[in-house]
């Protein structure tokens, strides 16, 4: 299962974090700092899977945003790597266009889209359309 998903900027600032398993708030900041530095330190064409204690870190760049997932060692790394692109694809479809600005300003939406796709660290929906439908319905209901 996945344990957390982070999005960081090129400069290493945390832009988004979602924890699927509980980690005390006080230990989150140091974990984030360590994990982000580790992934940023990887060379350009290096392997995107890194060992990090009990977890495997899977990271992927989308434009200026660094997406990182920490998963169990038993998880299929390539699948999670692909999941990240599925998630970004969903965000792209949801916002119409996806850029760093969207990450910065729509953190609540990022959480909502993620929750439709992953609950408790397990994938629930692999179809972008199915994942977005409930969010879009709720959006129209709320804006009324």
């Amino acid at each position, binding site marked *: 299962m996945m344990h957390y998903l982070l999005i960081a900027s090129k400069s290493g600032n945390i832009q988004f974090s979602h924890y699927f398993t509980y980690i005390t708030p006080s230990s989150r900041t140091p974990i984030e700092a360590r994990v982000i530095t580790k992934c940023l330190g990887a*060379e350009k064409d290096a392997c995107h899977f890194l060992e990090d204690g009990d977890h495997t870190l899977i990271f992927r760049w989308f434009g200026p945003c660094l997406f990182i997932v920490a998963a169990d060692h038993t998880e299929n790394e390539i699948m999670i790597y*692909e999941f990240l692109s599925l998630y970004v694809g969903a965000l792209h479809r949801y916002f119409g266009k996806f850029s760093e600005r969207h990450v910065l300003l729509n953190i609540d939406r990022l959480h909502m889209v993620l*929750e439709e796709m992953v609950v*408790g660290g397990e994938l629930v*929906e*692999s179809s972008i359309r199915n994942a977005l439908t409930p969010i879009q319905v709720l959006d129209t209901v*709320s804006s009324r």
Partner: protein
Amino acid sequence: MSSIKQVINDAVEKGKEVYEKVRQPNPIRLRDLIRQIRSAKTAAEERAVVNRECAYIRLTFREEDSVWRCRNVAKLLYIHMLGYPAHFGQMECLKLIASPRFTDKRIGYLGAMLLLDERQDVHLLITNSLKNDLNSSTQFVQGLALCTLGAIASPEMSRDLAGEVERLLKSSNAYIRKKAAVCALRIICRVPELMEMYLPATRSLLSEKNHGVLITGVTLITEMCRQSPDMLAHFKKIVPNLVRILKNLIMAGYSPEHDVQGVSDPFLQVKILKLLRILGCGDSEASETMNDILAQVATNTESSKNVGNAILYETVLSIMDIKSESGLRVLAINILGRFLLNADKNIRYVALNTLLRVVHADNSAVQRHRSTILECLKDADISIRRRAMELCFALINGNNIRTMMKELLTFLEKAEPEFKASCSSKCVLAAEKYSPNVRWHIDTLLKVVEAAGNHVPDDVVSSTIQLISETRTEQAYAVGELWRHLSIAQMEYQPMIQVATWCIGEFGDLLLSGHADVTVVESELIDIYQKILWSSQCSITTKEYALTSLMKLSARLTHEIGSIQQVVSAFGSHLNIELQQRGIEYSQLFTRHNHMRGPLLERMPPFEGTRAGTEQDKATITNGVDTPLDNESLLNDLTSPNNNAHETSESNALLDLLGGMEPGDSDTIKSTSTSISLTVASTPSVNADILDLLGGLDSGPAASVPTTNMNEAPPTQLPNSSNAAYLLDGLLNNSTPIISSPSSPVTNSAGTIPTSNSIYPLVLQKSSIPGITAYDKNGIRLDMAFELQETLITINLIASNNTGAQVTDFLFQAAVPKSIQLQMLNPSGTNMAPTASLTQLIKVNNPNKVPLRMRIKLSWLANGSPVQDQGEISNFPSALWQ
């Protein structure tokens, strides 16, 4: 009067101003807050913005402002993400959840998911809201509630809401079913007893068309099978269903909804393959059913795309785990072979990882890719190199050891420091296991020591020394090789110098007599030793090796003994206490006891017992000194180190023994007695002589104690070696005065031995970690000295009685945090006369390296009246866990 009024008015105005500043008419929007925070230039500025906003949010919360609650909670979530405390928003989330508006509920549940944790009391409150919403008539409200439950369910919540989830699992709505399935997953992880309840509903999930439900259903079944063997047996019958679903996925044409890079729902395929692996493991019937489909997936999946490789990866793992046909296994390993050649580093990494997982199942198949794997050792990527190294060691066998070791040594030479220690240890293990001959074995170990530089772990040094000491036939060769290394050695690499000096000290005569292939002049030898001993780059440990080795050489050389004596006596004033003591003791051997020097410095008996990686070796060498090695191996034969209570009496017994002997008695006795007391050397024959000697002294007061242990004590008892070292120091201190009596210059110049009773100061000095006084009250003082071996801390506790009264029934009890293991050995006694002391060894294993604390309880009878005290020790030196 008016001025006071003025002042008050001013203050009120100011307060209002501040209030107005804080209390804006409308709260700023989330994105405005984000902009403000992002534009902060310093951390302090950011903190100021956040604090101002938090103060404002708290204020609106207090005012029960329901209009902006939603917006404020959203901002709080952002602030929480940045790492600021936001727990005060928890109650507001609950209020939002209870609100009838969708917008509020959404943010409320999001907040609950992010802000709450299982230990909060608010969980009780949220359970009710969840129950209401799970029974709502709107699917999206149900969906939100399920989502939240799936993310934060605690055991209590799981029990309370299990029924609702079970009902929703049978809902007619696929959206609800998939979320209910993932909730059920969380619930059975929390409360496994509830598994039975979901069994009927779970089975029917597989007859589903909706992929979301299938994915969550398969995940749920996987977890059930993982947790319970009964479930595993039960679900064996769904294998055909799974095979059918998988087949449909492969055969199905293009479906835009689930297509990823031309592959139909790879996520679901991977989940099914994983479940098949669990169901088919060790079950030939189930494996038979899935053989075909696995072959189909393996051959039909597009390997040019990443997702295709993800599926192939999972398929290979499944094929190797179940009882599959041999042809299929070959196919699987070949897929991995292709992966190894892939340009994508991710794929190469996965290939190595998978090979590592399957190498035990099918070693010979993996062997075929050996050359490719060896290539990966040279990869630029560190993750790949690490995996390749591990895999190489798994592949080594008797046939390929020569080529593999050659590659690994090249790797070791260039490897990052983080690899060197583990790689060199593994090289030693592999060489130990598969070396074709002794000459090769010695060569390899020397190369390992050379290639790993200062990163050689201590056990490798000791293994090498032990190997050379054991193999009589190759000693001349080894010492020649070592001389070659030493004569060109850079002083910065300690392990090689340590091995070389040890061996040259022992077998220097072979070197000089020309048995080795090199010709060495004595003065060259002395020059090198001078260089080592006076080099600032060499560690104290290395110098200890060198000094003892040089001393040994004094019995092997013929011409240069004078210069050896000069060097040795110069160490009598060395700043390091250990070296100083050696210097002084060894100089005595040149003067007063010159006649003993020869027999004393004879060759060590070959080490016994297994070499590589044994606890014993580690324990011996991590003491970091050479003499303890000699001593301890000697002590190994002499004593069972376990029996703490006997220590003093034992050393006294030896003392008596030694004291009772005149140097002139007979040759054997002379050499044995001194070899015990100075513990420099003994030959096998001498060893046997000790036996005889002690056996003969049976009638003596306490001499039987060591005798009984002499033969039986197996080398494996040395995990207690700190104990042995301890005893050894007792021996050293107690016996030195006898040798040097009547004037006993040694005791005076050593100066560190306050009383002849105290046998601990040397232990204190030896460890680099400073000791502490743990307790000093009521006339009882507890001193602790530490020795650290990785995570194992050995504490030498010394309790001294300054009460002026007779202390009896002294009892020391201790407790440590849960993650630490504590073992207390028997104390040396329970009674203390005034000013006397007792000792106790405490072993503490701290695998997680948490700060060490200790709660202690003391009780004793002072002149018959009971005294009790307790306290906590928190001033342990942090070096113990860092």
